[in-house]
């Protein structure tokens, strides 16, 4: 049985999707993940955010095999 993947949402992304954690069945790469999320939460379309796979920012499409978590990170605004 494939392990579940946890998606963590923050800031305005969490606000848009109405929750801060989503469990998904295993997804093969970040492009596929984005497609699933945007279908389920159309409000994400046009929203600016980055992805971090197991806490590492990713810039291009990346495999998610074996990853435990993917975070949806809107632009940082600390300080």
């Amino acid at each position, binding site marked *: 049985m494939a392990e579940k993947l946890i998606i963590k949402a923050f800031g305005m992304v969490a606000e848009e999707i109405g929750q801060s954690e989503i469990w998904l069945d295993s997804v093969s790469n970040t492009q596929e993940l984005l497609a699933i999320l945007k279908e389920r939460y159309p409000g994400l379309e046009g929203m600016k955010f980055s992805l971090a796979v197991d*806490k590492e920012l990713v810039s291009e499409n990346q495999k998610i095999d074996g990853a435990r978590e993917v975070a949806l*990170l809107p*632009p*940082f*605004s*600390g300080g």
Partner: protein
Amino acid sequence: MDKVRTPKNIFVQGAISPEKIATSIANHSTKTEIGGHSIFLGQVRADQKEKGEVVAIEYTAYEEMALQKAFEIREAVFAKYPLTCMHIYHSFGEVKVGEICLFVFTSSKHRKAAIEACSELVERIKAELPVWGKEILDSEEHVWKKNS
């Protein structure tokens, strides 16, 4: 004096008090090789937004990643400048207008390293830490803070 550094907690619940800053300064009086300290403090501004005036900022973070990232920044800045000490504190949760939400503190033998390192830390903290500020307005609406 070489020691292995590990990630430290940088988050403080709510505002950072002036007393905490004073204590932190006073703690350096025994480090008699220090000649200069540079401090940056971020304070919550009562900005006027379309739907009202900011009365507070509520900070959230991807905490584990933020601490890991803060650690990497810390190590890089220690490697780049001859510093004696470096401290970073960032608020978590609600901070009211006029209160302090960020405290960055560097110390070195000579002023130049402390000043440059402090300024670089502030830029990197704002750009690289997964932290978000939700600006709460007096109309009870909110807007998501944007860093410039």
